[in-house]
């Protein structure tokens, strides 16, 4: 009898020990999962299909097109006509010719209009994943690749750039929609995640860099190349906000907020995401 009680007690003790192990095990599992996701990303980097989009974008950049049958090779991305190397690391910025603060994609539209004579309304209105947007995403991917490993230089020192940064910051914290969401709901606190996906804390330099310097990116699960405009557009969808107009000031403001917050970090474009 005594022996039986002893066995029962031992069993209870063992059960408690197992429960304790279980709690430790969950924390351990989380770390392991995050680590294995990181290992997966590293493995993918070797053959990033974004390279295929860089190649396609380069071809589009150099191919004469539009009513003027001109290429985009003389496009001024902020460092002078035709300078692509390092240009993406210094965008968004103020452009005197358009009297606007522009990100890469809005600037590409400007060049398509001024150099090639293309009416870009159809490009602005086209859905992501359709041919006109695919062109812009490929072009953005090509341009971004020529800023890889370059330091982000977006100081927001021009008054118009400063105003854009402030607008972006306000948009980031703006709460609205049926779920009363804001960008900050997901990206305004350190250490947040959705399922196993760590979410960058955008108001901090490290988090802003994690976001800003890794787009455009190839999304393996979808087999799609996404530009920053597409990324922001989808953030609006996830917040149940009305769809933002492509390359509109509001989207540029958010890019300005991220880029200037990430100022001084290193571009890793084009990126790869699972």
């Amino acid at each position: 009898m005594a022996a039986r009680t002893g066995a029962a007690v031992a069993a209870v003790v063992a059960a408690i020990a197992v429960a304790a192990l279980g709690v430790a095990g969950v924390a351990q599992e989380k770390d392991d999962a995050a680590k294995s996701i990181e290992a997966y990303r590293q493995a993918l980097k070797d053959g990033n299909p974004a390279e295929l989009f860089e190649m396609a974008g380069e071809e589009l950049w150099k191919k004469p097109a539009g009513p003027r049958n001109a290429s985009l090779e003389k496009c001024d991305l902020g460092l002078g006509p035709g300078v692509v190397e390092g240009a993406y690391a210094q965008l968004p910025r103020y452009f005197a010719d358009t009297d606007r603060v522009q990100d890469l994609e809005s600037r590409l539209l400007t060049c398509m209009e001024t150099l090639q004579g293309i009416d870009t309304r159809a490009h602005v209105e086209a859905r992501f994943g359709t041919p006109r947007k695919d062109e812009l995403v490929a072009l953005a991917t090509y341009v971004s690749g020529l800023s890889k490993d370059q330091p982000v230089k977006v100081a927001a020192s021009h008054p118009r750039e400063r105003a854009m940064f402030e607008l972006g910051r306000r948009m980031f914290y703006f709460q609205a929609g049926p779920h009363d969401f804001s960008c900050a709901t997901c990206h305004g606190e350190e250490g947040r995640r959705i399922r196993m996906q760590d979410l960058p804390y955008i108001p901090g330099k490290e988090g802003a860099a994690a976001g800003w310097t890794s787009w455009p990116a190839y999304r393996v699960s979808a087999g799609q190349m996404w530009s920053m405009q597409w990324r922001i557009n989808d953030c609006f969808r996830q917040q149940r906000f009305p769809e933002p107009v492509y390359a509109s000031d509001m989207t540029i403001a958010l890019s300005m907020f991220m880029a200037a917050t990430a100022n001084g970090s290193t571009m890793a474009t084009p990126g790869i995401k699972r």
Partner: protein
Amino acid sequence: MANPMRIRAAAKDGITEVRILMNHEMETGQRRDSAGAIVPAWFIQEVTARLNDKDVMSAQWGPSIAKNPYFAFKIKGGKAGDTVSVTWVDNRGESRTDNAKVT
């Protein structure tokens, strides 16, 4: 027309490592579009590689290979300056050949 591949080939200690990124939809034939119609199968079936003029690798692929495939393999032999040539043929009969110099 088929889009270009990106091929990188590097020789080290008598072994040449070839890494290829291919641009292909690789449709399985199992997927339906928004209208509910089957998206027809469309995938690479044959991959061959040559080192200079010699066949060194051939593979038969099916619909289970991912979109925009990444493919790496090692060849015995090969040195800097050699040419690696890769060809794929898909089930529509379309094909693409690209070359790269071994570094």
